[in-house]
Structure formats: C-alpha cells, structure tokens
C-alpha cells in the first residue's frame, strides 16, 4: 500500500480527500466561524453583526461573572477528583482482573457495560436512584452543590471505570512475566513489584487514561444536564452547561455563550497539553 502512495501521489490525495473534506466541513470551518461569531451579536447564521469584544466583557458582568467563575472552580475540582478516583479504581480492578481466576472475562464485560449507555440516559436513571435515597434525608440532588457534586462523581465513576479498566488490562497484559519473576527472585515484595515494575511499565496507559478522564471531566455535559440540570441557583453547573445556558438564557446573549466557548476551548486545550507533557515525560522508553 505504501508503495502505491509513493508511486502515485494522485491516489494519495484522492483517498485523503473525503476525510479531509469531512474534517474541513465538520471541524475547521465551524471552528473558524465560532471564533468569528464570538465577536458578533447573532440569533441565526443569517443575522450576524460585528460587536467587537463586547461579548467578552459581558462574561464578567455583575453576577454573571461570579456564576461563571463558580462553575469554573466546580468543574476544575470535579475534573481533578474524578480523574484520581476513576484511574485508581480502574487500575485496581484491572490488576484484579488480570490475575488467574475463573470468570475474569465475564467481570470485564460487566464492568465495561455502563459505558455503552448514553450520558442522558444515565443521568436520568441516576437522578431517580439518588433522589430516591436522598429524600429519606429530606434532601435532593439539587438541595446543595455538594449533593450534586457527589452525585456526578458516583455517576462518572460508575460509567468510566470500565472503559479505563480495559485500557489498563491491555497495558498490564503487555508486561512480560519474566520481569516480575526476576524481581521476585531478587527478593522484591509485591508492593515493590507494583511500584517499581508494573506502574512504570504501564505509564503509557496511565497517561492515556488520565488524559481521557481529565478532558472528560472538563467537558462533561449530558450527565450534568440530566442529573442536576445545573442545580439550584447554578450550584452544580459545570462549564459546558454554563455555556449552553448562557447561549439560550436571554435575547441577544448567544454571542456571549460563544465567547465563553472560546475561552473554554483555550482552557481545556492548555490543560490537556500540559497534562500530556507531564505524564509523557514519566513514560518508560
């Protein structure tokens, strides 16, 4: 195949074209328009009017800014805690399920299953479940921000552990038993084997999984919308939902929502790059 590409660059371009077109139409063009529209007042794509940086100043206008910052801190805290929790649990489950005992495949399937359900469905189901428990304490998911936070955390752990577990299982199975055996003969205990052999060797899986969970945490939307809907007085409103709510909150504020989306993109991009750099530097060659 590679030879065909080299001999006939024409084909190379031909085959690339559909994907490139789809990428342009589905990503590059909307992205460019999105940035442009964050400087505009608009209602539909037919009535775009340039207003300069007005949208960006409105983000921090009066109580709006406070709500936006609150949702930023809520999101940041959630992303960090959920990343740690999901990865630790997923790793533990993966270590367990790579041991030699019967039924590991069945358990892997069961743990993976929540991932096949959509976020909206999960949010709705967990809302009924968690509210059912909370009403016995005369509370609901939206009574305060903490309830919403813990609810979201439970939901996301339940949903994502299975997926991350599969990645860790693959990583763990890639480690040769010879290494562990050699370490054992040299007198290393199981704790030392875990921290000195296993974890450094699955570092690529760890950076992959932390990247996925961290960015997922930041851009969480469906689950937030259906589980708490942003909660009472925005107390469990994460960034993505805050942007969505701003977009449709009132006449003439679509541009403000768009401007928030641009800031959001810069933020998530910067965090993702920083995180990749840090974990990649720890990966064993």
């Amino acid at each position, binding site marked *: 195949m590679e030879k*065909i590409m080299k001999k*006939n660059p024409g*084909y190379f371009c*031909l*085959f690339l074209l*559909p994907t490139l077109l789809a990428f342009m139409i589905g990503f590059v063009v909307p992205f460019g328009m999105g940035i442009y529209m964050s400087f505009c007042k608009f*209602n*539909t*794509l*037919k*009535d775009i009017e340039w207003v300069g940086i007005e949208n960006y100043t*409105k983000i921090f*206008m*009066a*109580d*709006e800014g406070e709500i936006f910052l609150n949702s930023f801190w809520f999101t940041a805290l959630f992303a960090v805690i959920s990343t740690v929790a999901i990865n630790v649990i997923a790793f533990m489950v993966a270590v367990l399920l790579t041991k030699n005992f019967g039924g590991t495949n069945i358990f892997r399937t069961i743990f993976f299953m929540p991932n096949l359900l959509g976020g909206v469905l999960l949010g709705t189901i967990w809302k009924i479940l968690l*509210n*059912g428990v*909370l*009403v016995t304490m*005369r*509370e*609901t*998911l*939206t*009574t305060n921000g903490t309830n919403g936070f813990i609810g979201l955390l439970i939901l996301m752990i339940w949903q994502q552990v299975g997926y991350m577990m599969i990645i860790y299982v693959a990583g763990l199975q890639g480690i040769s038993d010879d290494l562990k055996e050699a370490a054992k003969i040299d007198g290393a205990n199981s704790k030392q084997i875990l921290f000195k052999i296993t974890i450094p060797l699955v570092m690529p899986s760890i950076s992959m999984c932390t990247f996925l969970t961290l960015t997922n945490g930041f851009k969480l939307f469906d689950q937030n919308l259906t589980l708490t*809907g942003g909660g*009472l*007085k925005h107390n469990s409103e994460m960034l993505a939902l805050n942007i969505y*709510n701003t977009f*449709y*909150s*009132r*006449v*003439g*504020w*679509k541009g403000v929502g768009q401007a928030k989306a641009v800031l959001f993109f810069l933020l998530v991009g910067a965090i993702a790059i920083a995180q990749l750099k840090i974990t990649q530097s720890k990966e064993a060659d």
Partner: protein
Amino acid sequence: MKKRIAVLLASAMLMTSALAGLASCKSGGGNSGADASKGHVYYLSFKPEADEAWQELAKAYTEETGVQVDILTAASGTYETQLSSEMSKTDAPTIFQINGPNGYARWKDFCYDLTDTDFAKELNSQDFAFKDSDGKTRGIGYVLETYGIIVNKKLLEQSGHKLDEITNFETLKAVADDIHANAATNGFDAFSTAGMESSTDWRFKTHLANLPIYLEYKADGIDTTKTIKGSALDNFRNIWDLYITDAPTDSAVLASKTMAECTAEFTDGKAVFYQNGTWAYGDIKGKIADEDLAYLPIYTGAEGEENQGLCTGTENYMCINSQADEKDIEASLEFLKWVFTSETGTDAVANKMGFLTPFKSGKTPDNYLVKLANDSLASGKSPVSWNFSTIPSEDWKNGVGDALTAYAAKPGDDTWDAVKVAFVDGWASEYAKIEG
C-alpha cells in the same frame, strides 16, 4: 493490477459519498406527489402532543392541492434551540411561532407583515393578533388556552365539602387544610404535589408566577414594565404556602417530583386539586369522569377575587418567515387559512389537537376543560390574562423557580426574601443584561 484496484476503490468511495449526499438531500422532502412550482410550506411546530394531527393535515393538504407541506415538531422545551438552527438553514421554516414581545425581539427580522392577509382577517377579534410598535400584525394567536385549579369533585364531596364553599383564597385554604388534616383517613390529600423537577416546574415558575405579575399590572393599570415592584408577592406566598403544605409530598424534596408523578397523584384519586391547563385533558380523560371535574380560579387572597376567573390566553403566535421565497410565503398563508377555515382543517384542530381557536370558522373542541373554561367566561368572571410574554428571560424564570424550591425546603422569611430578590431584582437585572 494494483492500479486497477486503486481506481476501483477510489470510484467506489466517490460513489458512496455521492450517494450519502443524495440520501441526505432526499430526507428533507417528504410527501410524494407534491408539485414544486406551487411553493413549499415548512412549519416548525411547538406542541409535541399535536404532532400527529399536524402530519395528517399536511398529508391531506398535499393530496388536495399538490403543495408540499413539511411539519417538524421540536421536542418539549427545545423550541428556541431548534428554531435557531432551522432558521440558519437554506430551507428554513416558512411558518414558525413566537411567544409574544420577547420572542418578537429575537425574531423580528423574520416576521412577515400579516396585516392585510386573509389569514389575519379570519380572527374573531384583533386582540389575538400580535402587533409591533407600528401597529402592524406580525403574528396570529391560534390557540386559546386556560389554566387554573382542576378539581376532582367526587373526592371533594367524599371529604365532606362542596364546590360552592370555595369562593376565595380564605375558603380554599379552609377546605384544603381540612382535607390535608384528614388525609390519612380519607386516603387522599388536597393538592397534587407542586413538583419542581424540570418537567413540571413551569407550572409554578411561569404559570403561577403570572398571578403576582397580573395583579401588579392590574393595580397599576399597565401591561408591561421593565421594573416590577413585587407588590402582589404576599399573594404569591399565600398560594405557594398552600400548595406545598397541603400536599402528599414533603416540601423539602419537591425537586425530585416529575410531571408524570404529580399528574398521577391527581388522576389516581390521591389528590383533590391539581394546577394545570386545558391541554392536560388528554391525561385526565378516561381516568376521571367529565361530570366529576370542575375548574377553580387560582385564588391568592387578592381583593375582589370572588369575581376572578380562570387564566386564559395564548403564548403561541403563528408567524410567516419574511425571508422565505415569495412563492413559499403565499403557499404558507394559503395553508394556514385552509387549516383554520376548511372543514378538514377545523375538524382536526378542534378534535384531534383539542385546540380552541380564535377564528371565525373555528370549532369547539371535544375537551371538557375547555367547556368548563367557556362556562366560567360566560358566567361573567373576569379572566386573568397571560403575562408571561413580558417576563424578561428564561433566566428570570429559573431564578424564581430555584428560589421557590429553596423556600419550600425551608419555609421562612429569609428564604422568602430570596424569592423577592429573584422576582424583583432579577426582573430589573435581566432587562439590564439584555439591553446592556
């Protein structure tokens, strides 16, 4: 050989993408036998419960006239979202809806001047035309709806009370308190739960909140304002206290109750009173006999409320997309006129959608709640107008709704102050944000 495979693959790929493109074009059109030269009608409908009836009407119209009619219905609560994205398309809706002044502010560039159209002349009264500041008709109200407190008379009598007893807030409270006190022995409570989950919170953050707005407007002799005073908020608190106290659910957990649960409490005979409108008849029909139903005004303890009627109005105005092709605009106007004047059309509107329309040739729907609403009007009670359309924004409603939920969780003067802040200060700050 390799070259041939490559060429084959490439052409196959091009063909599939071309096919995919064609397929996506095709899905836009629907009805067969349509004649493109006669224009194209595309209506983005607001009411999911009426979707089926609209689709049937569209089909019937295409068969009769050859004009292609497409109906798309936005999912509940997503009309503005859907409209924004549909309007951005080349094949934008030719007929859409606005909810009054705020919807008009958003969509004024798209609202066709309907003043001299035949469709506008079909209205019984110009009160149902939405006019802009120049006095031009930009939207036509097409459905009159009424909400109030729906009563299960049978249960009311079982509890030892009569409907005639209730003539104002004081008597309503006396009856409701008594029913609530005996809930355990009776097996039913006074009010169905005032659920504040997102599927039902509109009944209170919008419909119930209309009462203090209405009372203030009436006292001040105005029909809109940018700075509300909240002079009738005590009345609001009266009725909200009653709803959350004399109900089967602990008021701390209202946010967990969905529309389906609240409706079921009423239709299953677990509650005597239920705040909702004529559109809820479909849920009640067959579960509670017509003769057991009654409709009470929402009493709040306002002065002279013995003469207050039900809340009747419209928040749906039909508009024609002024940016559509002239041919499509003509076709759309013809279609609407047909829907609201022809035998087939009026029959479907009244009997399948259950709408009471303000048009000369409209029929009265087979909806017992509409009949009760008409009786109330005929008896000379003065209806409460719908003032939602003067509410500044969605955020205002959410702010009031959140404050009401928080108050219900911990009723007290401090939590009620938060409702006041959301109601009064929120109103001003929302208008400031829109204009700022």
